[in-house]
């Protein structure tokens, strides 16, 4: 179980290959990779995203989210990688990978990790466009996505 914060780009495929290697009981691997798009939320061409974070809390919060996922589902392993700093279009921002014996577990845990990460991990995005730099507004849809895990 690993949580990693870094400014450098990462290679999702290589990360997951390393994670899966020699795991005999794993039948299902689900990955989510969040990429930097080439457009700002308002549609303008995007130069870059700048991700600010609260380092000590980000590490602690991601570890709490991962522990919660492991308590809810029988995971063989999980990986969370999140970048900070300046990120160019096409580059990866975040990676979530879940390894499990069965696919339903791997899917549910990966979605849960992403939903919670979006609403509770202390990262803030700025968009850099020709018009200047502006903070990205939080989306109600993200709160709703995280909320569904606390029902029932």
């Amino acid at each position: 179980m690993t949580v990693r914060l870094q400014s450098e780009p990462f290679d999702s495929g290589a990360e997951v290959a390393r994670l899966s290697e020699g795991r005999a009981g794993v039948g299902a691997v689900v990955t989510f990779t969040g990429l930097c798009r080439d457009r700002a939320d308002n549609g303008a061409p995007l130069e870059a995203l700048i991700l600010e974070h609260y380092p000590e809390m980000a590490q602690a919060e991601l570890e709490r989210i991962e522990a919660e996922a492991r308590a809810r589902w029988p995971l063989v392993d999980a990986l969370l990688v999140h970048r900070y700093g300046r990120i160019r279009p096409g580059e990866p921002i975040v990676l979530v990978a879940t390894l499990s014996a069965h696919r339903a577990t791997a899917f549910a845990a990966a979605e849960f990790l992403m939903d919670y990460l979006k609403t509770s991990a202390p990262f803030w995005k700025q968009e850099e466009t020709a018009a200047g730099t502006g903070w990205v507004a939080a989306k109600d849809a993200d709160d709703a996505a995280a909320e569904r895990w606390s029902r029932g």
Partner: protein
Amino acid sequence: MKLKYFAWVRERVGLAEEDVDAPAGVATVAELVDWLRGRGPDYERAFAAGPAIRAAIDKRHAKPDASIAGAGEIAFFPPMTGG
């Protein structure tokens, strides 16, 4: 206690962090925010968004009515937009 500010809260306050001694009677996160707003126009502007501003006490999310007694580090920031 140490206060930390992030994203546009940081920009509006004009500081990334500072050490403060809140007066007696400031017992919760909400009371601390009220007290900070009285410290000047930068603070007033930073905290005018009210409930949109989130807080963390010692690196854990905290509600407005959470007690700040014994807190070492309190952070204020907008809703998160990572991922």
